[in-house]
């Protein structure tokens, strides 16, 4: 009996909004022929909470809390874009000490977000407990440090238009060095557990490849774009804060597969530690809030589009103001929204377990995809 006479049918497999591997409420409907995927339909919007509409009714300082809650793993980066947009409209110059502290906190937040990625990605690949527990141990140390500064474990609301809300405690420099040395050890642990593991390599190499040109066409950004060989980092291309004066490397990958996306993020963690050490030597003393930042911020009419490099990619805020103390239109351009569009290109032609690994490697946060 030859195989040509057996007719097969495509079936639809629904990886529903509740699934241990979809990183939040995301739904994929896979059309499967045997085990090979022929089509994928993503459905988003299960966490659409209307942050853009609600920010139009809020003050500029009340809106900072909403920015925290859209990107809930890299909160300082989200606050930074928003606060920089308001400052650009108001033409405030932020004092030097505030900018250095902002840089340190933003890079440490990149570390904690990538720790979460490495742990969750290990779970996606089948390593159920150990990297997740180790990486969360490091993340808890970072979060304890952030709690000492801002008072909250996750939703900091610490940046203000014009600087920071209050000054850092007196043992700031020694605490940062403690946290950095333990994070270095943590990165070494993660590296030793995952990177050269034979099963991990065979699950992630040559899986989910996307070409550089196709990635630019889809509008991808961040480590997912850099893994395809395109060297585009907003900290280098359009520097903000003091990234011009700091020496760091932009890590690119070679093939654009899942392993490259993981490895780029692992190396970026080391670069972040490097950047924070340089910032600590440059830290000055002085004011932390600009004098011109009044209590009631009325911005002149205008519009800005400020983009910064969040751990997931380009986080852009498009702010239109018409002279009031609230935004007239606030648009959040998040990296996960664009990166997720390219999922179709990456997944078609691979197997169902590979779809889980590919989705994990894009590193989405549903709060910013759905807003």
């Amino acid at each position: 009996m030859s195989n040509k006479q057996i007719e097969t049918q495509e079936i639809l497999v629904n990886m529903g909004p509740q699934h241990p591997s979809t990183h939040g409420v995301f739904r994929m409907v896979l059309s499967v022929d045997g085990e090979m995927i022929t089509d994928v339909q993503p459905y988003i919007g299960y966490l659409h909470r209307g942050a853009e509409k609600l920010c139009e009714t809020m003050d500029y300082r009340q809106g900072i809390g909403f920015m925290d809650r859209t990107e809930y793993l890299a909160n300082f980066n989200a606050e930074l874009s928003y606060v920089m947009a308001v400052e650009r409209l108001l033409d405030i110059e932020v004092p030097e000490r505030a900018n250095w502290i902002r840089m340190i906190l933003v890079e440490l937040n990149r570390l904690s977000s990538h720790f979460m990625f490495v742990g969750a990605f290990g779970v996606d690949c089948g390593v159920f407990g150990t990297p997740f527990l180790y990486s969360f141990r490091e993340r808890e140390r970072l979060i304890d440090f952030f709690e000492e500064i801002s008072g909250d474990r996750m939703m900091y609301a610490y940046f203000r238009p014009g600087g920071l809300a209050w000054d850092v405690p007196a043992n700031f420099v020694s605490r940062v060095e403690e946290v950095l040395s333990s994070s270095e050890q943590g990165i070494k642990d993660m590296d030793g557990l995952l990177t050269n593991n034979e099963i991990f390599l065979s699950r992630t190499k040559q899986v989910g490849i996307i070409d550089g040109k196709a990635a630019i066409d889809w509008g991808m950004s961040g480590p997912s774009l850099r893994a395809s060989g395109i060297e585009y980092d907003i900290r280098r291309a359009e520097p903000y804060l003091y990234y011009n004066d700091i020496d760091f490397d932009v890590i690119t990958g070679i093939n654009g597969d899942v392993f490259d996306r993981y490895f780029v993020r692992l190396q970026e963690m080391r670069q972040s530690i490097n950047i924070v050490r340089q910032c600590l030597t440059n830290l000055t003393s002085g004011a932390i809030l600009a004098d011109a930042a009044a209590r009631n911020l009325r911005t002149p009419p205008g519009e800005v589009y400020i983009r910064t490099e969040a751990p997931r990619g380009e986080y852009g805020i498009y702010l239109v103001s018409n002279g009031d103390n609230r935004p007239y239109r606030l648009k959040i351009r998040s990296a996960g929204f664009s990166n997720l569009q390219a999922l179709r290109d990456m997944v078609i032609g691979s197997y169902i377990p590979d779809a889980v690994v590919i989705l994990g490697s894009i590193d989405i946060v549903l709060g910013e995809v759905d807003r």
Partner: protein
Amino acid sequence: MSENNENQQLDSFLDNKTKDLFDKLWNIIEKNINDVSITRIDLEEKMSKVDLIVSIDKKDILNLFSQLRENENLSFDYLRCLTAVDLQDQGIEVVYQLYSMSTKFNLTVKSMLSNDDLNIESVTSIWRGANWYERETSEMFGIIFNNHPDPRNLLLPEDMLDVFPLRKSHPLAEIEVLQGEDIEPSH
């Protein structure tokens, strides 16, 4: 007089580097784009502090964008963002943010739609990444993008598609008030 005022306002927010960059890009655009009427509006009332803003009529959209993409001096191959702003009586304005990987220019293009004719051409044939942005903008504002390959709803639930949340005329929800003691955990 207004010229002086305008120059003063320019000097207060734009440093020389930004101003030179805007002028340089504007010159290249004027030289290389044919038969499309473009207006430079970054120096008007709503001043831009970051990117050069130009505005075009909605019928020139595909023409302008295909030229912007294919011209070697410009080569805008990266669409950052696509959104819309509801300016109540004047209409709805569609905003495109572009970037070029090779020449490193940034550009914002705007196009105004009047309230009784809310449709515009889709640019998914030029950049594939515009797909989901156009779906989201159309369900939030009620704009129809012609020739879009997949015009379904994206973020909103399927049974609530007849109202457009991000328009200014759409109100916020009421907070429901609980009636007090007769609320108990139901079994």
